[in-house]
């Protein structure tokens, strides 16, 4: 899952970026409003975390521009302003959620996950694909009764596939949602991670869960 963090206060940007990456998200960060809008327009982020007071372009202005241009990506507004008018203005301009500084990091994570579930029409905190089970809140995975240990990156990849279970997901989509903007993209990085994932979740005695659709991408949990 790929996030955009637009926050100009360096210590907050740094620590949130680190924490979110460790939680398995692909995170792009910027401290400038104009740059933030450019990022948001050029990628289909799963959640955009937006500070309101920004240099270059105000957070509310970014939100307005995004919505005006038809971008429906979930936006979580982070701000130190906590008056009712501020909240109402933010939500009216199309923010999906609101968090007042200072906040607990766990709460931020929970809200980001909730926004993602909503985005993928997934209200349950658990996704089941055949006998594969993902607990989205705890970020744990079971195959049958056996828990599967995944790295955050592997988990992120599996979660994205699970959210779109039954659909063909292109390599570009995967790359865009699981990898950071700034990371060096080698053409087969997605294939390599799919390989890691297969090794961990597939069972020789059962039909494969991840299928390659030649020339198009991958599909999780479809009938062969």
């Amino acid at each position, binding site marked *: 899952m790929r996030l955009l963090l637009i926050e*100009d206060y360096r210590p907050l940007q740094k620590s*949130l970026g680190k*924490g979110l990456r460790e939680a398995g998200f692909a995170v792009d960060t910027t401290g400038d409003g104009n740059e933030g809008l450019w990022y948001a327009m050029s990628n289909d982020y799963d959640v955009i975390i937006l500070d309101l007071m*920004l240099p270059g372009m105000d957070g509310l202005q970014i939100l307005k521009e995004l919505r005006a241009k038809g971008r429906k990506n979930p936006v979580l507004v982070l701000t130190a*302003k906590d008056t009712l008018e501020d909240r109402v203005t933010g939500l009216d301009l199309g923010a999906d959620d609101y968090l007042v500084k200072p*906040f*607990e990091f766990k709460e931020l994570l929970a809200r980001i996950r909730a926004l993602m579930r909503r985005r993928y029409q997934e209200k349950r905190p658990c996704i089941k694909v055949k006998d594969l089970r993902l607990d989205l809140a705890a970020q744990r995975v079971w195959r049958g009764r056996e828990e599967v240990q995944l790295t955050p990156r592997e988990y992120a990849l599996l979660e994205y596939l699970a959210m779109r279970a039954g659909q063909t997901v292109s390599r570009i989509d995967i790359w865009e949602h699981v990898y950071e903007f700034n990371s060096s993209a080698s053409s087969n990085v997605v294939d390599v991670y799919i390989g890691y994932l297969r090794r961990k979740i597939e069972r020789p005695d059962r039909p494969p869960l991840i299928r390659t659709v030649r020339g198009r991408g991958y599909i999780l949990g479809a009938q062969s």
Partner: protein
Amino acid sequence: MRSLRTRLLVGIIGGMMLLLLVFSVIVYTVIRRALLNQFDASLTATARILAASVEYDDDEVELELDVQMMPGFQSLERPAYYQFWQHDGTVVAKSPSLGTDDLLLFEGSLGVPVFQVLQTRSGQPGRAVGLKFKPRSDGRDDEQQPAKQRTLTLVVAHDAGDLYHHLRFLRWLLVIASVGIISLSFLVAAFVVRRGLSPLNSLAAQIAAVREDDLTTRITAEHMPAEVVPIRKQLNDLLSRLEASFNRERRFTADVAHELRTPLAGMRSTLEVTLARMRDVNEYQTSLSDCLAISKNMQAMVDNLLAFARIDAHQMTFHPAQIQLAELVNSCWQGFSDEARQRSIVFENRIPAEMTCQSDPESLSMALSNLLDNAVEYSNEAGQIWTTGRQADDSVEITVANTGCRLTNEQVSQVFDCFWRGDSSRTNTGVHCGLGLAMVQRIIKALGGHTTVEVQNGGIFTVRLTLPDSLRT
């Protein structure tokens, strides 16, 4: 007498009582005098008739009047009396109604009636007139008789019980009428005063309805008499001023909270993310030094806020001294020279070395430091900062200017607002929390001077301080 109602009532009733008293006394006096005059006139008329009926005939006094014709002198009911005396005091004649008694002899000058109050035989109050007169003579020459011996004195008295009774009745009538009027007017006045003062009650009710947490309410002018309108206006003005002041305070508190929240959020998320898992020593070190830096910034911010609050609350004490301005600016610059050097900013102090000013060194130093800090913060890379000084008659003018200003002229007017920053990229850098110029303005004002700012072409931002040469404390 705190109550307006009591005061009005006492005033009205007291005034009424005084007026009624004066009125009654005048009415009584006039009527009494008129009645007495009338009574006395009738006594005098009787006396003159009696006098006219007396004739001297050879030293004999003859009363030609037939007393039978004047029944008053005989009646026992409300009788009248008369008595004549010769000048030597011998009684010449008296009315039958006197019986054996005598009237008291009294007289004025010849032909002028004088009056007296007396008690009549019947025990009633009466009035008497004494008249000294020359009776008619029978026409013969009385040369040998001295004129004096020929005068007679007549006293006529009449029972005046009725008169005094009427006067007494009049007195009581006036007293009772006055008491009645006073009582009635008390009721009327109480009602009128209550009605008249009812706008005050409604004003009080409206004031009571003003809540301290909602100062947007205003007192309405409905049914307010003209006298209460200025009070209403003043109260509303007061409410407006209070509201503005409360709003300012609220905004300031909100701004302070906002300024403190961002670094707090940074510190909290740094700590939480770090504590989320086991890390190596280097990572812990980085996180801790990040948090230390944040806490230092927050401390500086709190210090600034406290200084600001003190200035705002006029809690500054001044110790005026003769200040060498150029020297003071140089010593203030010490704190910023390193940062300026790093960014290749050139500083030039153009204040004449001999220029002095009588002011408070500590406050002025605080203001100058803030200005220099601001100049360094907002100057461009390799920019310039300079200070100038100019002595006028009774004031000094100090300017602090820097290059690299990107503010428009409209924005310049906002620089004195608390927490305003020309470029929000300066947000949350911690130390510069947008109080600097607001603080300078307040310090200079407290020192009796004023502050102006301007932006010239080419991005030269100038702050001009005008200070009185002598500080009034």
